[in-house]
Structure formats: structure tokens, C-alpha cells
């Protein structure tokens, strides 16, 4: 556009999508929906060895209304299913969901009367993390995959409307 030429290095141009997605993907506020033993592994991602803060996602918001990413960590049973749905519905858009561990992903080995066979029966899921429980590295990998996914989205997308 020639603006850089006229004004030197005092500003740069970008696309709105790039700027917004850059801000979004490096400042995830997460809602940890923790129900089971996976929670202990999830906590280690916060701790200094793995340090999720490096990705700007260290800040848990315990109100779904202030959260961007819903981490479903652990087994979800039939009695809890409507609660999870309500938490998801309360989150403001844009919002993403990460299914943490095999229980949240598919019910795991709880193939029985009480357990929801995967949270995608209730709410849409963006990233699945396998493992029982997943290694912290897998969680960070999932976070980076989510960042990739976010950077490919557009503020004009209608998917949430």
C-alpha cells in the first residue's frame, strides 16, 4: 500500500483475521471441567516443569462466562451430562472444547450404564487428547494444535451463530 514507505518503520499492516487470531490463540482463558484422576495430570501441565504459561493459556477462569476454552478432564457420567451441557452453553463465543483423556473422549473402559460414551455426544469437540491419563507433552501438543486451528479461523466465520 505504500504506507510503510511513507512512514518508515513506525507501523505495519496486517489482516484483521491475523491480528485477532494472534490475540486469541496466545491468551486462552480456560475453564477446567475436572471430574476425575486426569485432573492430577492436568495440574502438572500448569506446574513449572511443563509450564502452560509459555503458551499464554495458564489462566483458569472458574466462571464459564469468562472462559474461551473448555477443558473436559475426566469421566463424564449420565448424571453430570446436563451440567456439562449447561456450562458449555454459558460460555461466550468464540469458544473451543478440548476433550482430555480417553474417558472424556470415548468413555474409555467405562462401557457401562452410567458413563457418557464420549462428550461429543453432548457438545462439539475441537481437540481430542488420547491417554489414560495423557502425558503433559500431549496436552501441550493439543494446545498447539488448537492454536493452529484458531489461526485458520476467520472473524467472519458463521460457525458459532
Amino acid at each position: 500500500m505504500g504506507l510503510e514507505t511513507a512512514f518508515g518503520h513506525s507501523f505495519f499492516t496486517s489482516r484483521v483475521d491475523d491480528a485477532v487470531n494472534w490475540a486469541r490463540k496466545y491468551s486462552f482463558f480456560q475453564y477446567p471441567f475436572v471430574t476425575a484422576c486426569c485432573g492430577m495430570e492436568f495440574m502438572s501441565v500448569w506446574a513449572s516443569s511443563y509450564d502452560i504459561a509459555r503458551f499464554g493459556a495458564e489462566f483458569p477462569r472458574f466462571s464459564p462466562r469468562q472462559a474461551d476454552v473448555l477443558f473436559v478432564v475426566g469421566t463424564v457420567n449420565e448424571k453430570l451430562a446436563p451440567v456439562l451441557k449447561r456450562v458449555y452453553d454459558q460460555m461466550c463465543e468464540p469458544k473451543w472444547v478440548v476433550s482430555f483423556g480417553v474417558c472424556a473422549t470415548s468413555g474409555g473402559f467405562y462401557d457401562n450404564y452410567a458413563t457418557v460414551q464420549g462428550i461429543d455426544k453432548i457438545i462439539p469437540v475441537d481437540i481430542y487428547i488420547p491417554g489414560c491419563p495423557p502425558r503433559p507433552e500431549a496436552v501441550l501438543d493439543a494446545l498447539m494444535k488448537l492454536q493452529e486451528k484458531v489461526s485458520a479461523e476467520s472473524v467472519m466465520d458463521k460457525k458459532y451463530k
Partner: protein
Amino acid sequence: MNQDLIRTIQEKFPAQVTGTHAFRGDSTVTVRREALREVAGYLRDELGFEFLMDLTAVDYPEREDRFEMVYHFYSFKTNLRLRLKAPVNGKEPVIASLTPLWGAANWFEREAYDMFGIKFEGHPDLRRILMYDTFEDHPLRKDYPLKKRQPRIVHRE
């Protein structure tokens, strides 16, 4: 000592005790269903079993009396443990509640009702404790289909 315990109960209730078992300090006494409340009261008041540790049920589909109630007692005074069993008929699964004797029995009996459908006479508040209210049937019965799924519930208002 365990043999003494079993013998004491047998001599007190000769007509009600249908079987005993002892193995390495584990004492088991089986009583008739109708006598449960009486025997349990005797255990608590006379033998000092002031602690009801556990209460559960087992489903034996091949038996004539399909269910078996299992109670575990402990005495702080004598450091003795005792397992009490009582058969319950599958067609009419009713047995006396022990909640009036041990408050600990309250939620255990609700669980046994929830999972096996055994009714406890004299229980102050017998309703499901683990599953939701609209859940049908009792999932720990052996004839409950393994793959059966029930309709998803909605959030309570």
C-alpha cells in the same frame, strides 16, 4: 476367639442361624431374613459391635433366594470383626432396615436399593442415591443388559 464369637451367636439364636464360616480371623454368620433386626440389635447392644463398617448386597441369579445382604461390623472394645449375611428373595426383595440401629446404614441402604432394588422396611428416606430419579431398573442386577443405555436427562430447573 472367633470360634467363641460364632458359638455365642449360635447359642443365642439356634433357630435363626443357618450357617457359619470362619477363615483366618474372618467370621461369617448367616441368619434368616426375618431375624436380621433382632440379631443385629443383639450384636450392637450385647456384644459391643458399635460400628457398622459396610453394608452391601450380592446377586446370585441361580439361587432360590436370589439376593444376599452382607453386613460388616467392627467392635472397638474387643477389636473383633464380624460379617453377617442374610438371604433375600428375588420376587419380594424386602428386608428390615438397620438405620434405626446404626445411622451409617442410611446411605448404604439407599445404595443397595438403587443398585439392586432391595427395599428396606423402616428406612426413613428410601430413594436413589447414585443414579438419577428417572433411571429405570437396577443396574447391578445380573440380568441388567450390559449395553443398555437410557435416555439422557435434562438439567433440573
